[in-house]
């Protein structure tokens, strides 16, 4: 069939090509693939599919180096979500995704639609979502604009997940100036299914109908539409919105309907219309199945009249799905969706001819040689080179920074760290998240990992997201290793065996050598850690170009870890449980204050080498801890992270606000390590355990070659630390106030520049 240009379509000029984000070489490649010039519609399709977001053109070669295999991995990278088997014929689907740029423009809707998208990725695998997590980065809360972004993002995540009825159980939030103009909003979803309910988004079966399901298509979020709003059609509204508005209510209906549809056996494939909407969902499903498809945009249910094929194909309207049904089962599919009050329309079919064809009624407006549309996308390996400035920062002599006079009182330092928004309790955040819906949440937010039981079994999942971008900035390889190791440690602290990860690579512009260097090194570090800890990567997301006028964000490879607790009796909490218990530290402390929150908060310094991540030591620690937990000797376990040992101990004391418990500890075991490094250094591979039987815990540690020593005893109404001449004695009430109230205080201080509360 011949493709004809639509009357009224703009003429394709080099400028228009550039505005679509294609380089001259890429455009030549497109002409070569087609054997002619593309139509405007075709240009739009290719610009979406070959965009960084859809094609991973700067990261794909690196991603191939990540370990992806284990006997229990049922679905690795490449699908809507990864899937692992967890025994009893059950499987877990999980994935993380970013919504950084939309959230920077409109935090509430940006974050909400991010949650919606990742939910769809999980339930389109056939899994019922059972938990949400997130990972957030903002600038300093001292600034009104940041408070506005933070408030809006948290409310957006909460409102969407709450309404759909999926508990948000864990996450992390960090604040640093590097995220000032470009916040990071990553959302992760975890779902559960029977192994045999797994369905993939692979189109097949010539003659099978392609059905659009869910919300109608509007003009929102059209890719690259900002430039073209006047040119596209004179009648179109010049103020065409670029922000999508989420509708969690429709999402909930879509969730129930999709699961019913998948279980019904009437369909062969289903995929979310996410980024680049109809275009990417249809092209990817076709490419995975190596089949042809044809789609008639005139059959697509739209919200507004006069939409062009270009607009319909590229719209990112939310809460839509694309389904490939079995031929002859259209009526049954329709009936299921009708029950849930959802719109459906057959808009195309799978064809034998190996082409990707779009028609507008009888006119063919786009036609590509099928699979090449996806596979011909160029990939790049740009130059990589570390920035000299950063190398210098890493080499900085941080040990030589003199203490401030206030530090003479170690409680002052401890309380300022506890009040640092990066360390402080995120209660202000997760109080806005429904954590108890579905009644599976054994441990919600506030401890190390979240623990969600698996109904009908004696097992539970342990879940956590982690990444310290500051470490990655100072040493990307080490920082990425730490992100994996910390997530694994958090999971192990609750009694879970780390199983697999999903990841979200948030970086700046990869075409700058120093950024590509960060990306490459972080991926290597992540691969090393995943290899060492036995946690393959089952999927993820790449978000590049996170930059603002002040520069790129810290390299932030967020890790979303799933662990398995194989006996409910092993579930372990983070905070002290009983007065009189012994406190034992697993792992060792070194003179490592580089990259620490202490340096940043107290001295305003980002420098030095981040703590070393010794992967065999991390592995041994996890094994020792899990063994001690399984033996019943461990009453609580909490790892040392930002703020070091003193902060970890303080958190163990006050994490449970209802039942705080003090402690008496002696930290004289490291005479060679400077005092502030013992207290606030962030050496890795350390866990604070409380136990009725220190000897048993220490013995378990020794069996794995993990250093372990008794530090003191749980009890009292204060945290007392003795270290050389220093005698710190800090009342629990002061610790509680600094830790639990400081974010709420900052948020109450002054209104944000706009009030997310007004969202109706």
């Amino acid at each position, binding site marked *: 069939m011949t493709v004809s240009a639509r009357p009224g379509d703009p003429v394709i000029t080099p400028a228009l090509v550039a505005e679509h984000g294609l380089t001259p070489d890429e455009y030549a490649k497109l002409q070569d693939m087609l054997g002619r010039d593309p139509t405007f519609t075709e240009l739009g399709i290719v610009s979406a599919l070959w965009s960084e977001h859809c094609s991973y053109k700067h990261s794909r070669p690196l991603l191939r180096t990540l370990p992806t295999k284990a006997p229990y991995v049922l679905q690795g990278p490449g699908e809507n979500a990864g899937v692992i088997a967890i025994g009893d014929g059950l499987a877990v689907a999980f994935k993380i995704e970013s919504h950084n740029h939309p959230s920077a423009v409109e935090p509430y809707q940006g974050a909400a639609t991010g949650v919606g998208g990742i939910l769809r990725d999980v339930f389109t695998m056939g899994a019922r979502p059972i938990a949400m997590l997130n990972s957030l980065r903002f600038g300093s809360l001292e600034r009104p604009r940041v408070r506005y972004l933070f408030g809006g993002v948290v409310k957006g995540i909460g409102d969407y997940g709450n309404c759909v009825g999926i508990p948000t159980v864990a996450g992390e939030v960090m604040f640093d100036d590097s995220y000032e103009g470009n916040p990071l909003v990553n959302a992760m979803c975890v779902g559960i299914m029977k192994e045999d309910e797994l369905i993939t988004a692979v189109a097949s079966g010539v003659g099978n109908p392609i059905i659009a399901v869910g919300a109608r298509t509007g*003009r929102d979020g059209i890719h690259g539409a900002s430039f073209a709003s006047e040119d596209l059609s004179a009648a179109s509204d010049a*103020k065409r*919105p670029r922000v*999508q*508005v989420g509708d969690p*209510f429709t999402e909930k209906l879509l969730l129930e309907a999709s699961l019913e549809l998948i279980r019904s056996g009437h369909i062969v494939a289903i995929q979310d219309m996410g980024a680049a909407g109809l275009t990417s969902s249809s092209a990817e499903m076709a490419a995975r199945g190596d089949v042809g498809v044809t789609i008639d945009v005139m059959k697509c249910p739209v*919200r507004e009249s006069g939409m062009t094929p270009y607009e319909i194909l590229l719209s990112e309207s939310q809460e839509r799905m694309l389904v490939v049904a079995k031929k002859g089962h259209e009526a049954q599919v329709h009936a299921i969706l009708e029950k849930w009050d959802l719109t459906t329309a057959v808009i195309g079919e799978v064809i034998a001819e190996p082409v990707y064809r779009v028609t507008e009624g009888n006119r063919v407006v786009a036609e590509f040689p099928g699979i090449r549309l996806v596979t011909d996308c160029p990939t790049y390996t740009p130059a990589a080179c570390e920035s000299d400035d950063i190398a210098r920062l890493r080499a900085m002599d941080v040990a030589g920074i003199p203490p401030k006079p206030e530090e003479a009182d170690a409680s002052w330092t401890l309380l300022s760290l506890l009040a640092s928004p990066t360390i402080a309790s995120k209660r202000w955040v997760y109080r806005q998240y429904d954590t108890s819906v579905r009644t599976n949440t054994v441990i919600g937010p506030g401890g190390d990992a979240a623990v969600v039981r698996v109904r009908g079994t004696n097992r539970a999942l342990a879940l956590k997201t982690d990444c310290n971008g500051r470490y990655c900035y100072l040493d990307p390889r080490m920082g990425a290793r730490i992100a994996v190791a910390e997530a694994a440690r958090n999971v192990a602290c609750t009694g879970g065996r780390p199983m697999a990860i999903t990841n979200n690579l948030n970086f700046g512009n990869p075409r700058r050598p120093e950024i590509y260097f960060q990306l490459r090194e972080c991926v290597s570090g992540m691969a090393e850690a995943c290899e060492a800890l036995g946690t393959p990567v089952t999927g993820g997301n790449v978000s590049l170009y996170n930059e603002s006028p002040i520069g790129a964000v810290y390299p932030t490879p967020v890790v979303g870890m799933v662990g398995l607790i194989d006996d409910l009796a092993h579930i372990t909490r983070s905070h002290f449980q009983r007065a009189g218990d012994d406190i034992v530290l697993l792992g060792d402390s070194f003179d490592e204050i580089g990259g620490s929150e202490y340096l940043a908060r107290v001295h305003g310094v980002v420098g030095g080498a981040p703590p070393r991540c010794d992967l065999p030591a991390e592995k041994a620690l996890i094994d020792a801890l899990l063994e001690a937990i399984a033996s019943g000797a461990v009453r609580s376990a909490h790892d040392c992270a930002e703020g070091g040992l003193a902060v970890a101990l303080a958190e163990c004391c006050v994490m449970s606000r209802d039942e705080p418990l003090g402690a008496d500890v002696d930290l004289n075991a490291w005479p060679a390590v400077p005092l502030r490094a013992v207290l606030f250094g962030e050496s890795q591979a350390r866990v604070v355990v409380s136990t009725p039987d220190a000897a048993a815990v220490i013995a378990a540690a020794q069996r794995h070659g993990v250093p372990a020593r008794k530090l003191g005893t749980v009890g009292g109404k204060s945290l007392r630390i003795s270290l050389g001449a220093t005698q710190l004695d800090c009342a629990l009430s002061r610790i509680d106030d600094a830790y639990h109230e400081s974010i709420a205080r900052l948020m109450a201080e002054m209104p944000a*520049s*706009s009030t997310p509360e007004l969202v109706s």
Partner: protein
Amino acid sequence: MTRYSVSVHITPRRGVLDPQGQAVGGALRTLGFAGVRDVHVGRYVIVEADADSEQAARDDVSRMCERLLANPVIEDFEIATVSAK
């Protein structure tokens, strides 16, 4: 200084999804109001403020809308009435 009462309409932008309007429209039709075509739900804000003149009051509230009351990315606003109290 006089006390003015300024009322504002804030509405979802055209083209922006209005799930609330859709849900309400659907409910009204189910209730038997068959003639209902379209429903939009926005906010009605009344600001009582002191100002030197009616024009000043109007200008002030316009600026309040731009800065806080309306979300320019997805909403439009319009000053409905200004009256001295």
